[in-house]
């Protein structure tokens, strides 16, 4: 492990016990204008997207791009192989028709659409990532059990140790601590 960044403050973490208080806290942080922050929960909380001010995921664009690439690639492949590169007339049928090229193009649409989704998601989430500062935090393991954590990164332009701590306290967070990188 590189030691150059270790020990630097990474984020301010606060613990919450109920979905309701978390939603309220998320709204406060959203309205305060923070950008680099996240909420970690042991189960899905309905309405959290809205409370955090999250927009719809951009991953759909990767799916669409993958899908259209797959479809065009399928058509192009069948056309190239059957009409240009190695023509074999069968049953009086045309050497190329979008009709018989369709099943292949359709399957490739799905395949590359799925690849687009998966790798687009990885790209947007900056995955794979083998190390995360939060995993060092002793209390954070409760996130898979019964506690909810709000994490505001120090890299956020609005971050200030005193102000952000005050905001989290005001929102009802407990065990507010600095997590080191």
């Amino acid at each position, binding site marked *: 492990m590189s030691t150059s960044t270790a020990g630097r403050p990474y984020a301010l973490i606060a613990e919450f016990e109920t979905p309701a208080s978390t939603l309220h806290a998320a709204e406060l942080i959203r309205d305060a204008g923070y950008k680099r922050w996240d909420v970690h929960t042991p189960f899905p909380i309905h309405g959290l997207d809205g409370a955090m001010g999250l927009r719809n995921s951009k991953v759909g664009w990767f799916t669409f791009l993958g899908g259209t690439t797959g479809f065009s690639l399928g058509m192009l492949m069948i056309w190239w192989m059957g009409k240009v590169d190695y023509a074999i007339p069968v*049953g009086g049928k045309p050497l190329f028709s979008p*009709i018989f090229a*369709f099943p292949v193009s359709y399957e490739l649409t799905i395949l590359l659409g799925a690849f687009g989704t998966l790798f687009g998601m990885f790209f947007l989430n900056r995955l794979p990532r083998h190390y995360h500062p939060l995993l060092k935090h002793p209390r954070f393991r409760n996130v898979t059990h019964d506690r909810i954590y709000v994490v505001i990164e120090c890299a956020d332009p609005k971050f200030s140790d005193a102000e952000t701590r005050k905001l989290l306290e005001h929102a009802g967070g407990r065990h507010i601590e600095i997590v080191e990188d």
Partner: protein
Amino acid sequence: MASSAAIASAAPASAEFPPILARLPMILSVVGGLGALLGILVPSLHKQFAFSWLLAFMFYLSLMLGGLFLIILHHLFDAQWSVPIRRIYEHIACCSPLLAVFFVPILVNAVVAGPEKALFQWMHSDPSHDHALMAKQALFNKGSWVVVSLVVLALWIFWTHAFRKASLEQDKSGSASCTRRMRVLAASGIFVFALSLTLGAILWMKSLQWQWFSTMYGVYYFAGSVWLTVGTVFVITMFLDRSGPLKPVLQPVTYHDIGKLFFAFTVFYAYIAFSQYFLIWNANIPEETFWYVLREKGSWWGVGMLMIFGHFFLPFLLLLRIDTKMSFTVMVPLAAWAWLMHFCDLSFNIMPVLHPDGFVIHWLDLCCMALMGGLMAMWFIRGFKAHPPFPQKDPRMAECLGIHVSAAKPHGGAR
């Protein structure tokens, strides 16, 4: 439970329609009815009238069967999201007796009409000179046609009304046994539905060209029907939300969910329609291809292209995004477009027999559409106004609204 009581009391008794809209079904049915009457009275119009009537009948049958399917789907999956809009399905499906009445002219044509005016020409063909008819004689004889037609209509009337009866009973009793009964009806009904719809599509539409083969045909009609119905349900839901009756129980996500179903059937229809075409195109057997050859002549070619780009690509691309699925300004025109597309689709299936040279919209088509549409709308509104606008005591309602209702007492004996 306090929550469901509060929901029930918040609901107004019925929808208030703007005056023009309230009178529209009546105007449509009177104007359409006069036109249709002319079609019956003038002998030279008889044949066109029979085809126009069949087209309109198959169109509104799509809506009714789509409604029945959505009820069955709801109970088969024990869905919670569609509880608030289930009554819309039930009232659409309960138009089944009206559809049985609409079937009468078709029945009369089949039984009475001579070869020059008959819809179903195979009834006037001699099986000993017609191999295709000989092979299909078990189903394709006048007696079977009449009996099977009446039986499937009776089954639809029974199933649709059994569902609505159980649903309305639960409004009063709140008993879980009603839900149980509807599940049994759904589990048995899905088989009845699949078989009866396929038989209906074959007997009334496919048998116009009885020499043809397609194992896809029932599914093809089904896919288009449910697509049309889901789009229609979206608009009715939006209207009932804005005018009040459904306001207390609808969530924004309900529109997203209906939109997703609409999207799914957009793709499913295209998949089925393409598969049917693809298999026949690839096999290249004259007994099968003649059906499509007829439909690639004249302006029917254009209608075929309209099916690919208008019935599939346009809605597909529009519905990809979440925000368009929830936008009224996109979805309302799209639902109207779905009506036009389904009309063209059914015309593509029925009309080339009468007009082999190309696509024609005859004024009798419009009259029959207006008459049946007006009557069906009146029937639907009457049913909707007579009963609570959404299931009052459905056990899944609270869950649908995001309210957590804990069990009265945890399991595990006395504590």
